[in-house]
Structures are given as structure tokens and as C-alpha cells.
């Protein structure tokens, strides 16, 4: 998939080795501080798995990266674009960052194919035929080419989530965000979605994944980030992270989820 990723070929940003840079980021919901002093640098092609207890701010962090949530202090540079409140740059960032949600969020009034071609056609101004061709290619990659003309409600959860992945990929993003992509799925469908993500990882995509799928983290992640109370508590490469957690909170958390 790396070769089809060349929307901005010749763009000097492609050479930039840093995909996401977060410096001392703080965010509040009213008086409640959701994110505190977040520092994280994600290299191009790197795959990060973020885990942590419910309410620790994982989703919020992810949503800051594509500007679905504003933040109040610190710095966030995505694909060389510094995020501020400037709407223009928000659009630029969102074009380069794909997101997959826990609840899929497919557009129910559009067919699978239309879900996939909508943004390329209207945001990137790709001609319809070309957008459809690309969409069919990605649907094939996630192994549901035969569902292109169905409506989302006619698909299983696992199929819907794979459509959501294909839909995001159709925009040729440089960075992919996944917010608990498998936690709304029945167990037997988890694997098909993880497989699609593993294949994506093998193409060299930069990925930030909020997930508690430890097998997936071990197999795919370059680093695992553990969050608690809106802070990053520990970062390590997966084998070390699971075998020898250092912080007390990490140990406690791992002992709970591995039980």
C-alpha cells in the first residue's frame, strides 16, 4: 500500500522522519483535566498501541491528533503541520489522517462503495471512476470486494469495521488512527478486523491504535504506550512492556487485564 500512498510525492514532508509530534499537551473539559503533560513523538512508519483504563484519556488524545477535539496548551505537529485553531490547517491535517471508530460510523444512507468514494471525490476532487477503482481495490484488500453495493446495515459488525478501514484508506492518509476498533465486535469477528490491520501495518503505514488486544500489540506494535489519569505513565517496546512493566500502575493494569 506504500506505493499507492504517493498523493504528495515530491512533497518534502514525505521525507520528514516524524509523523506526529506532541509536546507538553494539556487539555481540559471545563475544569476537568483530561490530558496532562503529554509528550509523544511518533516516527514515520511507526506503530503505536495505546492502552490504559477506561476514562484515562486515550480516545481524547487520538481525537486531538485529527482535531476532532481542541486542546488548550502545548504543541501538536501532525505530518509537519502545526495544529492551531486555524481552520485551514485543520482541513489539511484531516486529509492526511484517517480514523477508524469503535462504532464504525459508516454512513447508513450510502452504499459501501459510496461510503468509500465520497471523501475522495468531494475533498480530494478525484474523478468518480478513479475513486471507485481505488475503493474497489481497498475493499479487496480488506477482503470484502463483493459487498460494494450493499448498505452498511446489511453487513456484519466485522464487515462494517473493515469497510470503515477501507473508507479511511481511500483518502490515502499518511497516518491512521484506530480507537478501539474491535471492542464493539463479537469475538468471532475480532480476528478478521485485526488481520486487516496487521496487513495494513505490513505496508508501512504509521498507525496509532487504542486497543487492549495484547496479541495484536505484541505482533504489530513498535511501542506500547500506557496511559492513566490523562498522563502517559509508561512507554516501552511490546515484549519488554508486557514481560517487565516498570511502573506500579502498569503492573496493576496488566495483572487485571491478563487475569
Amino acid at each position, binding site marked *: 500500500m506504500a506505493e499507492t500512498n504517493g498523493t504528495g510525492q515530491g512533497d518534502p514532508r514525505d521525507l520528514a522522519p516524524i509523523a506526529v509530534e506532541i509536546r507538553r499537551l494539556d487539555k481540559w473539559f471545563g475544569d476537568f483535566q483530561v490530558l496532562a503533560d503529554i509528550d509523544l513523538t511518533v516516527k514515520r512508519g511507526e506503530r503505536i498501541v495505546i492502552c490504559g483504563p477506561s476514562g484515562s484519556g486515550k480516545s481524547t488524545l487520538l481525537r486531538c491528533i*485529527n482535531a*476532532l477535539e481542541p486542546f488548550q496548551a502545548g504543541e501538536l505537529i501532525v505530518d509537519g503541520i502545526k495544529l492551531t485553531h486555524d481552520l485551514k490547517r485543520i*482541513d489539511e491535517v*484531516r*486529509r492526511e*489522517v*484517517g*480514523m477508524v*471508530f469503535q*462504532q464504525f*460510523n*459508516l*454512513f*447508513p*444512507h450510502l452504499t459501501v462503495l459510496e461510503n468509500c468514494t*465520497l*471523501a475522495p471525490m*468531494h*475533498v480530494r476532487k478525484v474523478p468518480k471512476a478513479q475513486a471507485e477503482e481505488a475503493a474497489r481495490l481497498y475493499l479487496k484488500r480488506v477482503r470484502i470486494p463483493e459487498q460494494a453495493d450493499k*448498505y*452498511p*446495515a*446489511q453487513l456484519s459488525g466485522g464487515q462494517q469495521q473493515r469497510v470503515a478501514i477501507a*473508507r*479511511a484508506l481511500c*483518502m490515502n492518509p499518511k497516518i491512521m488512527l484506530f480507537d478501539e476498533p474491535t471492542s464493539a465486535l463479537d469475538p468471532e469477528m475480532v480476528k478478521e478486523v485485526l488481520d486487516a490491520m496487521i496487513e495494513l501495518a505490513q505496508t508501512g503505514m504509521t498507525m496509532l491504535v487504542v486497543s487492549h488486544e495484547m496479541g495484536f500489540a505484541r505482533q504489530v506494535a513498535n511501542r506500547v504506550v500506557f496511559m492513566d489519569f490523562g498522563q502517559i505513565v509508561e512507554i516501552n517496546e511490546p515484549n519488554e512492556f508486557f514481560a517487565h512493566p516498570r511502573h506500579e500502575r502498569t503492573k496493576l493494569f496488566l495483572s487485571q487485564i491478563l487475569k
Partner: protein
Amino acid sequence: MGAATPIAYVRSRPAERRRPPVSARGPFAWLRQNLFSTPFNAVLTIVAMMALAWLVPPVIRFLLIDAVWVGADREACLAGPDGREVGACWPFVRERIFYFIYGSYPLGERWRVDLFFALFAFGAGWLLWLEAPRRTLGAAYFFVVLPIASFILLSGWPAVGLARVDTALWGGLLVTVVVAAVGIVLSLPLGIVLALGRRSKMPIVKFFSVAFIEFVRGVPLITVLFMASVMLPLFVPPAWSPDKLMRALVGVTVFSAAYMAEVVRAGLAAIPRGQFEAAQALGLSYGRMMRLIVLPQALRITIPNIVNSTVALFKDTTLVFFVGIFDFLRTIEVARADPKWATPVTSATGYAFAALFYFVCCWSMSLYARRLERRLSAGQGR
């Protein structure tokens, strides 16, 4: 518990299949379940039946059995020397029917009204028939082409050989349809804008939308109509001063836009946040997100309510009567005073005819809305 119940059980032979017991099938069971299921329901059923028995026969007798079907003037509808009771005087309706349809629209130009009805029916059909091809084009036709074409057709454009017809001559069904159609065609887009304004993060936009919606909704239509017909001329230069019909149209549009805004708002509120977020995450701008993702879904679930508002608006159009417009009801009102047809039953006939007309129109719209509602709740799909 006498003998110890065994823990395990294995069925030795399949259970026999039987028909339901007599008490659960046939017309008696149906009656019991639907009409007499509890003492209270039984009383209700009996009271309702008595009311029907008391009301329906006289109505049928008046409208059909005792009705006069042929005749040239009032003589036919007067009680005869034999003292026979006289019902509805249908020859009166038959003779004045063209007045009820066209008002005083010039005789030679009435084909223009017929053409307008046809164009309107075509557009409405295209839009309301969900399986129709190219419905987006249908919407463009109904909301853009039709209004412009109708305006030229009905009020005239000497340059293309269509003589001017002053709106003071318009009347009857024509005016009722024009007022209702203009009300819908304009109030829907206006309502959408107001509903979006009400959700806006910009305080001024939000304030004006809320103020407009709440003010108009807090005032009876008749007040809005009077305000439009009295105050509108004060705001525009005299040369541009809108005629009576135009003022009424503005009043009706303003009024129904406020209601439409609330209908659309309910639809917007039903769209999950995830839809907005998915659209934003794909890089869609606000306008595209609304146009391509949010409004199509919101309007689709709102169609039954839009049709219901249309029914209400259709009935409300009768109020333009009070600002001097000759709508359908007003033409009947005028005709029944005609000495040629003055009989004790003329008024009742006219009103019965009006009631039938409004009932058939509104009831068919409601039927359509209900069918649609069932279909939409049956699931997403096409």
C-alpha cells in the same frame, strides 16, 4: 413434590401439533380480543357504535339518498309540494365548480392553470414516489424550475405572448394550491437554514434563529398574515409594493418556516454524533458534511413530519380568506350567497363539499406519511 423429579429429561416422541382451541380462533375470538377485551373496552365499543349509528345514517341520507343530482337553478333544490325532504344540492356545486377551481381567472387563459396543475402534480409525484428515478433532479425541478415556470405561466409574461393576469383574479383551488405549494417550497429550505442557525456555535446567528422561530411560533397564523399584509408595504418602496396575494404568501411562508425549522431540528438531533465525527475525520467541510451526510439522513427520517406539517399548512391556507384572498373555501363562501341558488340547503351543500375536499386531500397525505413512516422504520436500505 411427590416422587423425586429426575434431573435429566429426554423427549421420547415429538409433541403432537394441534390447531388452536376454538376460543382462540374465528370471528368471536377476534371480537373478544379487539372489541370486548375488558369491561371498559366493551363499554367504549358500545358507546362508539351507538354514536356511529346516530351520526352516519343522517349524513349518508343528506349527501346521497335525499340529495338532488340534476337541476338548473334553485327550484330543483327546494322542498317539493309533497313536503319531501331535500338533501345536498349537487347541481349547485356542478354549476359553480369552475369558479371553485379557477376563481375569476379569465376564461380564455384557464389552460394555463390546468398546465400549472399538471406540472405541479408531476413534480409532487416525482418527489413523493420513492422509487422514482433521479430524485435529486426531481427535487431540483420541484424547488427551482417549477416555482419559476409557474410564476411566469400564471401571472403572465407579455414578451412570450402570455397576457398578464392580475392576482386579484386568481381564486379557488388555484389559490389554495399556490399558497400551500409556495409555503412548502420556500419554508423547507428556510426551515433548514433556521434549524442549522439554531444549532450554530455563532451566538448572533443562533440568537436570531431562536428569536425568529420562537416569535413566529408564539403568534397565531392569522396575526402573522395581518402583520404581513399591513406591515410589508411599509418596508418596501411603493413602486415595489407587493400585491395582496404576495403579502399573504410571505406571511404563510414565514409562519411555516418556523414550524419547519423545528421539524428539521428534531431530525438533526436524531443523527448520532459519530456521523458528524466520521465526516469531519474524512476532511469534509461543514457545508459538505451537512449536505452530503447529515441532511440527507435527517430529512429522510423527517419526511413523515414534513408531510404532516404540509397537511397542517394546507388546512391553514384557508385563513388567507381574512386578508382578502379568494381561496377555495372563500369561493364556496361567495357562491353560496348567489340568489340563483339560494335554498335552505345551499350553504350546507357548499360546506359539505369543502369538507369532503379538504378531508380527501389531507387524509391521502396522512396515509402517505404513515406508509412512509412504516417503511422508514422497517430499516435503512433504500
